[in-house]
Structure formats: structure tokens, C-alpha cells
């Protein structure tokens, strides 16, 4: 009799422990592993395209500030940050020499076509990871134009995931900024508001950049 009760208690206690392990410990470990593998992917990209060094950090920074500016809940910003890190994973398909050495103006038609497929290729690579499925969706649309009917293969306007819209503005701004400097880059982005970029995000970007300048001035 006594022994049977002991067994019942033992099972109850051990199953509570097991539940805690399954619901808390394993998922947080999985989270950590997702972070680790994201770092491995971005390391691979960085080694393949040394030209891009620094751009990714800038894009991540801008995305986070834009998300904050829009009041995005913190649990969604994790996905956005991962997407910002992994957005160009599909660029592996573009030949090494083309991206690293050849100026964009000299690219051939087929090289351009390959480049324009990179969001889709990246999404298909990320689809291998069940935990990153939603990020694959963001990556797939991260160069999709905002304007109606510009590209029928993608959704447009507000139907695009908000993360993709943020990523488009941030990544294209960061690239222009690196090539042409801040003023020209911001002008180019503002020029595309409504057609290429979400106007709300373009004004958000302007606010973020202004506060950045204020921030720079403040300590001096």
C-alpha cells in the first residue's frame, strides 16, 4: 500500500520535472542554437563577400531603431534582427568575382538576373530550418517593391510583412550610404517613397537618422 503511494508521488514529481525541462530548458537551448547557427551563416557570407563587411551591422542597427520607432513589440524584433543578418544568404549563388570585384554597371544580363533571385534562393535555404520558417518569408520579400503592381510575383503594399518592408528600407539605405554618403542615400530613399518603399517607414528612417545626428552632437 505504502509503496504504491510512493510510486504515485514519484511519478508525479518526476513528470513535473520532465515538463519543466521540456517546456523551459529545451526551448531556451534551442533558441541559443538558432542564434549560433545564424552566426555561422553570417560568418560564411562575410567570408564570401568581404565587400559587405560592416553593412550588415549597419542594417541590423537601423532595423532595430526603425522597429523601435514604429513601436514593434520586442518579441517580434528578434525575428527581424535574424532576418537582417541572414537576408543575403542567397547571394552565395552569385559568382565570387562578380560581387567582389566587378562594378555593378558592368554586370551582364544573366548576372543581374541571378542577383535578383537572391531573396528567393535565400528563403529556400532557410526553409531547411523549421525554426526559421517565418524568417524565410521575410527574406523572400526583402527586396519586393511597396508600390501596387510593380512586381506581380510578390504581394504589395501592406500585404508585405512589415519586417520585409523595414528590411528593404534599411538594407538599401545602408548600401547607398556606403557608396554615396548619407545625404544622397536619404534623398534616393525619399525619392522612392510610395513606389519602392513604405512612406511611413521612409519618414521613420528620417527621424531615426536625425536623432542619430543629434546623438552625435550631444556629447560634444
Amino acid at each position, binding site marked *: 500500500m505504502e509503496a504504491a503511494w510512493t510510486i504515485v508521488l514519484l511519478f508525479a514529481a518526476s*513528470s513535473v520535472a520532465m*515538463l519543466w525541462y521540456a*517546456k523551459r530548458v529545451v526551448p531556451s537551448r534551442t533558441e541559443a542554437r538558432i542564434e549560433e547557427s545564424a552566426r*555561422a551563416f553570417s560568418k560564411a557570407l562575410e567570408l564570401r563577400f568581404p565587400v559587405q563587411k560592416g553593412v550588415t551591422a549597419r542594417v541590423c542597427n537601423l532595423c532595430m531603431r526603425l522597429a523601435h520607432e514604429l513601436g514593434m513589440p520586442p518579441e517580434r524584433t528578434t525575428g527581424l534582427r535574424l532576418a537582417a543578418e541572414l537576408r543575403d544568404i542567397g547571394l*552565395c549563388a552569385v*559568382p565570387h568575382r562578380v560581387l567582389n570585384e566587378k562594378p555593378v554597371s558592368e554586370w551582364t544580363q544573366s548576372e543581374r538576373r541571378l542577383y535578383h533571385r537572391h531573396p528567393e534562393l535565400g528563403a529556400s535555404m532557410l526553409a531547411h530550418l523549421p525554426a526559421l520558417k517565418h524568417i524565410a518569408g521575410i527574406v*523572400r520579400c526583402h527586396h519586393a517593391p511597396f508600390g501596387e503592381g510593380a512586381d506581380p510575383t*510578390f504581394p504589395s503594399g501592406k500585404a508585405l510583412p512589415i519586417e520585409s518592408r523595414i528590411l528593404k528600407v534599411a538594407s538599401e539605405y545602408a548600401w547607398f550610404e556606403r557608396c554615396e554618403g548619407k545625404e544622397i542615400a536619404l534623398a534616393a530613399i525619399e525619392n522612392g517613397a510610395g513606389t519602392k518603399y513604405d512612406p511611413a517607414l521612409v519618414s521613420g528612417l528620417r527621424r531615426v537618422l536625425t536623432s542619430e545626428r543629434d546623438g552625435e552632437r550631444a556629447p560634444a
Partner: protein
Amino acid sequence: MSVSQATARTRRPAIWPPALACLWGAAVVALLALAPIQSAPDSGWLPILVAGLLADRLTLGQSASRQGVFGAAFQVGLATLCGPAAVLGASVASLLFKRLWPPRGFDGARWRAELLPAAWTALLAAVAFWGVESTLGGHAGSLSAACAYVAIQHFGPGALSQIGLGGSSFWPEARRLPSVPQGGLFLALLPLAAANVVLVKLDAPGLVAFALLPAAAACALVEARTREEAHYYGAIAALTAMLQRAHPQTNRHMERVADAAEEVGLRLGMPRKRARLVREAALLHDIGKIAIDEQILEKPGPLTHDEMAHVKRHAEYGAEILAPVRRFGPLVAWVRHHHERPDGTGYPDGLSGSRIPLASRIIAVVDAYDAMTAGIDGGERRAYREPVGEYEAVAELKACSGKQFDPRVVRAFCSALRRRGAN
């Protein structure tokens, strides 16, 4: 459009679907209601069979791990109460059921692949059941017998395929079957055992509900672990996909090298888990080539000094890429040293002899053989060298053994090749 919409919505998978609760409730009710049948097994056949089929049907939409755990728990109960014939009947009926009204993704190939292992093991399991029950006797006897029965049912197919009698040797499709994490089975047996003890000792059938908690915990654990594993293998798949995009001609090379490396590892006496790690290292050994210019790799003539130095860096790059992932820990060194030579003239660190990890030595041999023979039947021939036949490649490996390759590994690889040739 649909893809992006489906994936952009971040939805947490439902962990406690009402269906699962209903299933467990039904199982307990069945256990309670059918307990007296022990004395008269003939009368309880039909309801149990129906319950089993229903359970099977309901768990079909669930993950493979949940199906496995639930199935095992149900079978133990069934075998304890009604004997192995009932379980056998339920399994056969459920297979027929699936054949007649196939669920999504369950095609003829999958059916054939499941049928044979089930038939192989059922016989063995039934013999074990009757043996254990008649030796031990009583309630404890029938419970242990049921556990033995179900254990054989679940581990049987794997064990049989180890000795070459499994379903996969007759139907290659059997390889595609989702594997149920095996730890989950034992976790599922425990609650049933507890329920049984309580039922007998306390004479308080209501307490069987306690069995629900451990069973649910087991399900949650198996599911969480499955997700973790899926992420690990997904990361490997995604990395190889990146490499394949960068260097399309490496397509099948990776898989062949991985298969051969695992086999050589086993032949050299590595434990199964270790050999599996070697397989993963072999899949990823050239991952550093992502950072290498394809035009240099595919260049027909000899490389200049600078180009050679650039290509040689891929071993270091590979280690650098894998380093952030903690679970790739041992693989980092193996990938870094897969171009070292026993005589110390390799790169990147010029290690010699036994200071080179065994896994790296294995990968070096297998990789060299595959690179030499690749393209003999057309397809992925390398621009910089003519493919050679199997015999010439083996002769080359043997000629370089001791200098470029570890002789022990070369011997193991050659005997693996002979075995493959004989089959």
C-alpha cells in the same frame, strides 16, 4: 504570394491540442473499462480493436514522435490486458485501414515499407511475450511481457536492418520513414507501468488518471527534443545548400564522401555516434570553399602561387564558419585539418602522424578517392584533371599511403570498397 503569407504569420504550434487530451482520456477509460477482460480475453476483442483503430486514426495528423509514444503506451496496455494477439490484430488492422483510406503523405511505398518490419517483428515479439509471461506469472508477468513485446515491436525493425534483414534492404523506401526518437518509448512505458501498479495495489481505479501527467510530459519532451534535433540537421542542410549554390559541381560529392566516411569510421571501430559525427564533418568538410573564387577552383591549368594560397585557405575558413555553433565543437578541428598529411607537409598547420585527428585522416582519404574518380561516368568531371578508374584510384591511394594518407585508414577504405563491389 501564398508562401510568403503562410510563412510570415508566426504561429506557435499548439502544444496541448484538445485532441491529445481526448486521446489520453479515451486510453484511460479503455484501460479502466476493459480491465476485467483479463480473465476473459475472448469477450473484449472487438471494443479494444475499435479503440486502437480510432486512436491510430486520430494520432495520424500528429507528429511522428507523438504517434510513436502514444502507440507504444496503447500497445502495452492492450498487450497486458488482452495478450499479444490483440496488438497484432490492431496493428494489422490499422495498416489495412491506412491502405484503404490513406492519410495525406501515406502512399503505397510507405505502406510496403511499414508492412514488412511489422511482420518480421510481430512473430518474434509474440514468442517473447508468451515466454516472459509463463516464466514470471501473475500481473507483474503480464506487464513485463507486454513491455518486452512492445520493445521488440519498436526496436525490432532497426535491429533487423542492422543485420541486413530490415525493410530497407528490400524496399529502399523504408529509409524515408520518419524515425521516432527511441527514448520516448521508454518514457511512455513508465506511466503505463505506474497505472498498472496503482490499479492493482490500491484498488483505486480513479488514480489511473495520474498516468496522464507523466505521459503528457513524455510527449512534450519528445516533441521538444525532436524540434531541437530538426534544427541541428536543418543547419547542416542549409550550410550544404549554401555551398551547393556557390559551387554547383560539388552536388553529389558531399553525400558520397559522407556515406563512405561513416562506413570507414565504423570499420575502424568507432562507436556509432562518433561515426555519425564523422559523417556530418564529411558533409561539411569543404564548407570553407564558400569563400573561394569558383573561377580559380575550376581553372583548367596549374594554379599560380597566389591562387594556390587562396584555395588552401578553405580549410581555415571552414573551421571559422563552423566555430560559432557549439554542437559543431569536435567538427571544427576535423574540418580544419582535413588537408593535413601524415608526413607533415599538409596544410594549414603542418601536423604530422597521430596529431592529425582520425576523422580528418578518414575524410582526406575518402575525399581524395572521390575527387579522383568523380566524373568517370560523365557529369561532374573536374576541369583540372582527367577522371581515373576505380583501380587506378585505389593504386594511387596505396602508393601515397604513409606519406599523404594514413595506411590504416587506406586499408579500411579499400576493404569497404571491396565489400561494396561484392554487393
